[in-house]
């Protein structure tokens, strides 16, 4: 029997992936972040309208470790990171796996702008040449990177104004088809200040409560990370969860229990900011892979 060729040919990508993970660990350990592991199988995820958890023996596999990470923040841990597998039902495409790896990190005593600086510094560690070649284009990674508000992105790139896209429930469609492909080509782009209703776990922006302190990082048209200044108002968080759970039920989705311990302890959480970055996509970008399958040992279809 010949060796499995499709698997053997992934060796350079898997070696690059291992090096990237080592660099990330060294970066956060050097920055005095505590690496933690939290359970993958949990009683309740945050109820998200468009993210479906995989059921597991009456509980669920986590779709992100964020609630556990925030309980640790609330207990007084100032800087945390975690690299872990997460599961999201039905997500499969060129840049999606139903089981993938998230890098999450959290800082207390700051807002989402500190995480932008972290992203810039992390990439500087990963790419000493400070430029990424994507196809025949070159993305300059020199700091600072572009900051673009959602409102400005719609004004610049979209075929209809933001207010209309929201009213017609076409926000995600316009974002995906018209805006995302154009972001992060000169330098990476932080797309900032989302409409508040699209950021269930984020704090509203002081002075402009219509938007939330949320950003997404794009490099070469690829959504790489999502970050918030965390909401620390437990009552507000509970009512947002209830609103999203009602929307889930109305859409015929299975019920999502309320994460009570998280809501209870949230009141003790200091002002903080947290971010989730898709490790597989980062490896894709750094290795020039065209599909996510190329940067994992096994895609589900290969099992």
């Amino acid at each position, binding site marked *: 029997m010949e060796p499995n060729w*499709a698997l053997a040919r992934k060796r350079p990508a898997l070696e690059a992936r291992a090096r990237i993970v080592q660099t990330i660990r060294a970066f956060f350990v050097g920055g005095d972040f505590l690496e933690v592991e939290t359970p993958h199988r949990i009683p309740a995820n945050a109820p998200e309208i468009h993210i479906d958890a995989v059921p597991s023996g009456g509980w669920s596999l986590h779709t992100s470790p964020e609630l556990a990470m925030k309980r640790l923040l609330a207990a007084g841990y100032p800087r945390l990171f975690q690299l872990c597998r997460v599961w999201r039902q*039905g*997500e499969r495409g060129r840049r999606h796996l139903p089981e993938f790896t998230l890098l999450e990190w959290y800082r207390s005593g700051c807002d989402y702008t500190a995480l932008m600086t972290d992203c810039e510094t992390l990439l500087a560690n990963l790419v000493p040449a400070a430029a990424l070649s994507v196809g025949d284009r070159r993305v300059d990674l020199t700091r600072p990177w572009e900051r673009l508000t959602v409102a400005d992105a719609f004004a610049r790139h979209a075929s209809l104004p933001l207010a209309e896209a929201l009213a017609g429930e076409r926000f*995600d469609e316009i974002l*995906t088809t018209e805006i995302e492909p154009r972001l992060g080509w000169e330098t990476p782009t932080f797309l900032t200040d989302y409409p508040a209703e699209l950021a269930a776990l984020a704090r509203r922006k002081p002075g402009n409560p219509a938007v939330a302190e949320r950003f997404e990082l794009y490099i070469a048209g690829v959504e790489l990370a999502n970050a918030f200044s965390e909401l620390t108002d437990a009552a507000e968080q509970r009512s947002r969860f209830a609103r999203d759970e009602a929307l889930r039920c109305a859409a015929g989705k299975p019920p999502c229990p309320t994460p009570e311990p998280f809501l209870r302890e949230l009141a003790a959480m200091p002002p903080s900011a947290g971010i*989730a970055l898709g490790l597989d996509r980062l490896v894709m970008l750094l290795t020039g892979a065209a599909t996510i399958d190329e940067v994992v040992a096994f895609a589900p279809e290969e099992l």
Partner: protein
Amino acid sequence: MYTCADLKKGLKLMIDGEPHVLSQFEFTKPGKGQALYKCKLRNMITGSLFDRTYRSGESFEPAALEDREMQFLYRDESGYVFMDNKTYEQVTLSEETLGDDRLLLKDNMDVKILLFNGRGIGITLPNFVNLRVVQADPWVKGDTAAGNNKPARVETGYALAVPSFVETDDLIQIDTRTGQYVTRVKE
């Protein structure tokens, strides 16, 4: 009925009373946002292509098609001729209808022909076909790394990447769904 979760390349759907095949398919989803299914559909009768984006929650009618076992006989100016070995009925498919599958088609190969109202509108090749390599660079001694590859061409004219140890005159197995090399076949 199909749902968005069933969408994949090659799926056959009935749209406005005519069979369509999903010729390209891309799943996209903002992390926190709604899933979108960007599809390129080919009308299996007219061959015309169009783009459509579906959102989760939509449903689709499967195309009512007959799938019949047939054998590839020959190619002439009218197209590619196939025969049902039980009824001796023959159908002819155009180069356009066959698309890239024609590059993996060998005389006497058993295939499935898709019929819509008695007309041949598509083909399903066996999942795996064995084809002979007619052109490949020689194996460089010492190149034993299992993941290395090089270009090669098989008897039907199809070009693909193969491991470095594959040589001209080898019989190789190809997965027709991905077009990729699987293994060498012992004779």
